[in-house]
């Protein structure tokens, strides 16, 4: 017991000294578990996040938009992969993580359970959803676990184009006609609140946050990140000439921040619990893709083995 305590004290000291923890270093089991859960959830979110956008690839309004959207979705597949790999360094396997996603045991960001009804939704996702994700991810570049931090750095480098392509879509639509601007307003009305929910429950309702902050897995609390996001986004909405759907949204000179209205946490927990508009559809699409791809994975392995045995025969 003393031994464990001294190991944990040493570990915390390394964290306090801003040392990064690497895959083979000793770490408390709860640290490992928290990381596996957080990183794999993050990876699942990248993968499931491709689905609402994939809906619009064939209907993008121009070749330029289509190419940009394809590139963005391809990035997301890559980001999922960086994150799965980072989680695997902690001793979990890809199959295990996919299995947890497919059986509904593991969660992904509940924002992806909302539908993409119009092309303006693709713009709103890039601006708000990717904007919120970036806010979170920039902070995670300094997370204490080395492989996770390195994955985050890579992701952040690539992600900034995602937000710009979204904003560019909205800017073009807002300048183009009243009808298109109304589409943008409608999309923002639907995506604003779910985007604020992406940062998770209020700090007072988030029991694991304190430990995660102490271990520097998280570097900023949910509420701090949410506030930063609101402060950053309000002026961007003004440039678009779009109203953010919150009557209580007002600059508070005393705090130096924007005040905003109460989040509907009942809706958040409903969606997390599987009752969002698209939960079933998203999971079904993932499971189907995995099952229908099984023969490809198997064929590739069989082919690789055939080539290997041919080489061995010719060498003998």
């Amino acid at each position: 017991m003393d031994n464990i305590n001294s190991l944990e004290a040493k570990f915390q000291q390394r964290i306090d000294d801003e040392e990064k923890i690497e895959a083979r270093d000793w770490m408390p089991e709860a640290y490992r578990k928290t990381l596996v859960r957080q990183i794999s959830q993050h990876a699942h979110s990248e993968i499931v996040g491709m689905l609402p956008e994939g809906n619009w690839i064939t209907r993008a309004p121009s070749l330029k938009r289509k190419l940009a959207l394809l590139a963005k979705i391809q990035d997301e597949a890559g980001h999922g992969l960086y994150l799965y790999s980072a989680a695997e360094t902690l001793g979990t396997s890809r199959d295990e993580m996919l299995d947890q996603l497919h059986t509904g045991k593991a969660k992904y960001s509940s924002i992806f359970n909302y539908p993409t009804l119009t092309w303006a939704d693709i713009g709103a996702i890039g601006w708000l959803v990717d904007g919120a994700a970036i806010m979170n991810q920039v902070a995670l570049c300094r997370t204490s676990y080395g492989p996770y931090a390195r994955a985050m750095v890579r992701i952040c480098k690539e992600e900034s184009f995602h937000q710009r392509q979204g904003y560019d879509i909205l800017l073009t639509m807002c300048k183009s006609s009243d009808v298109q601007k109304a589409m943008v307003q409608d999309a923002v009305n639907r995506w604003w609140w779910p985007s604020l929910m992406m940062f998770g429950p209020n700090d007072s309702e988030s029991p694991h946050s304190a430990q995660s902050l102490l271990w520097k897995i998280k570097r900023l609390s949910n509420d701090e990140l949410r506030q930063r996001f609101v402060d950053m986004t309000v002026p961007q909405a003004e440039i678009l000439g779009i109203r953010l759907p919150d009557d209580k949204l007002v600059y508070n000179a005393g705090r130096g921040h924007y005040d905003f209205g109460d989040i509907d946490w009942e809706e958040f927990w409903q969606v997390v619990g599987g009752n969002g508009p698209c939960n079933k559809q998203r999971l079904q699409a993932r499971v189907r893709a995995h099952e229908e791809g099984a023969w490809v994975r198997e064929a590739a392995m069989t082919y690789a083995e055939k080539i290997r045995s041919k080489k061995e025969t010719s060498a003998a």
Partner: protein
Amino acid sequence: MKDWPLFEIFIRSKNGLNHKHVGSLHAADAYMAIQNARDVYTRRNEGVSIWVVESKYITASNPDESEALFDPAADKVYRHPTFYELPDELKHM
């Protein structure tokens, strides 16, 4: 079905520089690992050359032996040029 093995990926960002570890991925064989690495790690001109090696072939030093391995270097200041005090008028050394 057998799982696709894990490969470690190393990228040379431009000629004249070392290949550097960038991450890992699963592939059926080394050739597919190179193709996947090209898609995953060089989408924005990050590389001119790729090495892949199956993770199981990498032998890593044990973090518990870090002190024994690396601490002895700490007290050998005479391995650094700044250890030697030489006259100011001495040039080009």
